[in-house]
């Protein structure tokens, strides 16, 4: 799978679409490489399978991620219905440490309000944001 039109949230999640499916409401969500580097080595990813089919609001928690030294909540970058969880990542979370968007999506969602997606940051804006955030 190849993702495109990635946009970024202030909580360091990204949302992207499959390349051949740019205008679909079906999107993928993961954490940014910046977030991964900040967390350090990731050892567990905890996303409860009972969220599948549920609507989760923008900025609500959809899971948690444990690194060796710290833990962080995972936030919805936009409101959406949870379609699928990346089980490969749940069973082998250490692959998040070798960063690659395509493999490292965490959840597939159906976006409820496309305006929320439009309002997220572009890569350029996000890079600017992370440079100023520490």
């Amino acid at each position, binding site marked *: 799978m190849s993702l495109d039109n990635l946009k970024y949230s202030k909580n360091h999640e990204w949302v992207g679409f499959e390349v051949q499916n740019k205008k679909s409401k079906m999107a993928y969500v993961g954490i940014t490489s910046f977030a991964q580097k900040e967390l*350090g*080595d990731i*050892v567990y990813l905890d996303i409860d399978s009972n969220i599948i089919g549920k609507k989760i609001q923008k900025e609500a928690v959809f899971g948690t991620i*444990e690194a*060796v*030294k710290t*833990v962080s909540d995972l936030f919805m970058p936009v409101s959406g219905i949870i379609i699928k969880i990346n089980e490969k990542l749940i069973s082998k979370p250490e692959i998040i440490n070798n960063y690659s968007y395509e493999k490292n999506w965490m959840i597939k969602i159906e976006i409820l309000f496309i305006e929320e997606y439009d309002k997220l940051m572009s890569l350029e804006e996000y890079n600017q944001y992370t440079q100023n955030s*520490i």
Partner: protein
Amino acid sequence: MMENNNLEKTILYKNHICLNAKMVNFCGFYMPLQYTSSLEEHMAVRKKSGIFDVSHMGKFILCGKNTIKLMQYLTTNDLLKIKIGQAQYNCLINNNGGIIDDLVIYKISEEKLLLIVNAINIEKNKNWINYYINKYHYDDINLIDLSKKYSLLAIQGPLSLSYVQNLTNISLDKIPFYHFKIGKFSGFEKIFISCTGYTGSKGLEIYVPNEKTEKIWNDILEIGKNKIIPCGIASRNSLRLEMGYRLYGQDICEDTTPIEAGLSWITKFEKEFIGKKILQEQKKKIRKHKKFISFIIDEKGKIPRKGYPLMDDNDNVIGNVTSGSFSPVLKKGIGLGYLWNNYKVNSVFLSIRNKVIPVKLVKLPFIKLNN
């Protein structure tokens, strides 16, 4: 990270930057958190070798005729039990039996000690010791703070000694655990080399005057190319936690006594010291005190963290976690903490983000090493 002008730098600051270390504020110093991966650094120390710049640690020389007499009174462990050339883990305590600092004391001679203290406690310890030097008119005793003049390199891991042996004429494997030698290293004379560390794995700690530090660091990385890897404070923390070593400011503080902290083994009642009466009463259980525990979480993905509540089987909060992490060797969450009352409980539970899960109380260390 943004420059913070109040932070101190070790002599090797630029070397860490060149090695792409992620630098963080640790005890008021810019310290390398990790270079590549804290997991890899952890396992390098457990299986081969890693090198740490821990120059932030405080280093005092205490010398004079009455040095040992004074330190016997200010600490809980018995300095008469170690010989010249030997080191001892010890606690400085206050009148209430609270831990002012935990430290390692090296006996250089009967009148000269080297004290290695925590960076955050340097000024406090200096004031405390100097107060008692003045109080008892020990005019012969001098406290010399070498913290900013000396660096400390720790080479830790089972293969460390063999990797760096060619840099010295001292037979490294002949130095017993918690002993030290002074000799030639990297071409410099009079280098202080001790068989100690904060990781639990076999290794050395080398005390070096600042101006010689960079050459020694580079020589070790050169001779240990692809074998000795630089390690940061993230792996140092997970390594010490696997051994159950307490961290000052988290697991112990001035409100914790050595008895409460499970450090009875360094509390020797056959000598006189500050706070002795309170510790004796705690030991005899005639004074209420909190209880130190160490535990493993068997459930996958659940890692205890500092501050998480500990509960009994009726959901009452009965304690808290003081240190917690993922153990790279056990591949499970491990933690240290306190139960606030020293009463018997059937089982202890941990609250992680509103989920309550059982913990398995275990004895330390969490892992057994074949050093």
